[in-house]
């Protein structure tokens, strides 16, 4: 799939994400849209997982540490055929396993997440298991930048470097906003690149909406003996003009008219891409 084709898919996935959130009456809109391109690249270009291979012990592992962006993840999984798109309509509904954070009841989910600061330690265990078994699978996690205030991430940061886990990649969805406002105001964590380098990680900084850059960063061989941290600079609410860089859309649910407007913008983006591709 070309970059353009993936971008086109992303407009569809953004629509699915927004519709799922509206259907659920709850959700994490801004962060879902900020990490959607990353998920799109992971599941369509990087991870060797599919509904058919998901039970294979040699599959790559992906653990979404920022579990609240579950609607975007479920949209991508539905698109990859893990379950029907219609299932997205059951998110947060009574007796649906599609609760507001990932659970292993849903095909394609490795671990139950949602409390922050859990994904990276879990992935270290997974990466260590791969090393012990001389297995070639890679382990990926996606962290929010606000999530980095959880101390467990830094315990894990030490351990991953200590054990030279070059089969581990942590991607930071660096959208610079969290529920209360700018991350720099809530709890400043910059410079992120220097911090992770100081912890012994190989660090790459990319535009988290640039398909070529994301693909290159995620597919390049790891620096031998070092875990990789990809700081993906993203825009919270990406793809919907009135949601971009607005903290209230962290878990804002669009009204009927806002959804209509958002879908119209995404339709327009879709048409533009289709025109460019002709």
């Amino acid at each position: 799939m070309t970059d353009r084709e993936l971008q086109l898919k992303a407009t569809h996935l953004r629509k699915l994400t927004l519709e799922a959130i509206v259907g659920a009456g709850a959700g994490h809109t801004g962060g879902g849209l900020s990490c959607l391109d990353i998920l799109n690249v992971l599941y369509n270009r990087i991870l060797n997982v599919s509904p058919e291979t998901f039970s294979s012990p040699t599959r790559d592992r992906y653990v979404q540490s920022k579990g609240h962006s579950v609607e975007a993840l479920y949209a991508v999984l539905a698109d990859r055929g893990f379950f029907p798109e219609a299932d997205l309509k059951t998110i947060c509904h009574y007796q649906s396993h599609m609760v507001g954070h990932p659970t292993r009841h849903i095909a394609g989910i490795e671990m139950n997440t949602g409390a922050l600061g859990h994904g990276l330690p879990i992935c270290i265990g997974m990466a260590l298991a791969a090393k012990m078994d001389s297995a070639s699978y890679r382990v990926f996690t996606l962290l929010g930048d606000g999530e980095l205030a959880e101390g467990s991430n830094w315990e894990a940061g030490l351990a991953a470097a200590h054990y030279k886990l070059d089969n581990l990649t942590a991607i930071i969805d660096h959208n610079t906003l969290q529920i209360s406002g700018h991350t720099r105001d809530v709890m400043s964590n910059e410079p992120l690149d220097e911090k992770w380098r100081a912890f012994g990680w190989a660090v790459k900084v990319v535009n988290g909406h640039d398909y070529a850059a994301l693909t290159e960063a995620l597919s390049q061989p790891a620096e031998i003996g070092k875990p990789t941290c990809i700081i993906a600079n993203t825009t919270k609410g990406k793809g919907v003009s009135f949601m971009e860089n607005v903290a209230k859309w962290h878990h804002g649910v669009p009204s009927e008219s806002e959804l209509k407007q958002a879908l119209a913008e995404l339709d327009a983006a879709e048409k533009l891409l289709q025109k460019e591709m002709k």
Partner: protein
Amino acid sequence: MFTPAAKAMAEKLGLKMGRANLDEFATTLEELAKSNPNIVAVTSDSRGSGKLAPFGKNLPKQLVEVGIAEQNLVGITAGLAACGKKSFGVSPGCFLTARSLEQIKNDICYSDVPAVLIGISSGVSYGALGTTHHSLHDLAVLRAINNLTVIVPADNFESRQAILFAAKATKPVFVRFGKAAMFNLHKPETKFEVGKAIQLRDGNDVAFIATGETAIHALLAAGQLAERGLNCRVLSMHSIKPLDTEAILKAGRECRAVVTVEEHMVHGGLGEACASVLLQGGVGKPFRIVGIPDEETVPGAQADIFRHYGISMEGLSEVAVKLLK
């Protein structure tokens, strides 16, 4: 730990001193790990206190050291288990079940990975080190988490059996150990089944339902009370979850009074679990929970703390006699 009178009673009952349950755990785990390379121990600078230094020396590739980082320890233990390892996260009970409780709840139990957590030097094993090092809350919090088997072995036999069970378990397991040498309470042919109490002594006057390192004191008290003409039942309730409700109800129905004994705060542990079973089962007998009261624990070693709060042959005998009056 024992007064001269208690030691004499142990001798009279033919009890032989074993070793620390923690030593039994470490030996058993290493034995299993030698034939199963998938067994991995995870320690938080705790291999010495977990008696796993020989394990680390003999099986270095099967031990993961995470440093003093208990949250990371549980997360890593979960990740290893999710990728096919039989992981044992080993850390002092006080830190493991407080600092990393969220990881236990989510990464292990909610994600339903077959990991084992070992709380070492639990209860007031680190007595004189103070409240920071006590775990008197662990049974209460772990009972309130879904999808976790909780085992508190009373002696070396139960310890070994608990580890053999945990090594084969396909669901999360927590095992709580102290570090004092324990009398052997069971014969080797005793049947051990998770969720089933082991009756150490039969009787219908008072039923002692005890768990972990307190069970010996209940057994000694029953011996002492027999000399006063009282026949007491003693149950070693090694499984806190699942709980042997049948044995509890039977004891409540057949005995004149029930005394529970635990190295845990009186809130939320074995005692309140038994009270709930009895009350909901319609059994109303004189009942007393012996444990650590809701106060700043008295300073002292484990033996001092036990004696202070009546977790002793003498203390438990006194409680039983008063309850029957």
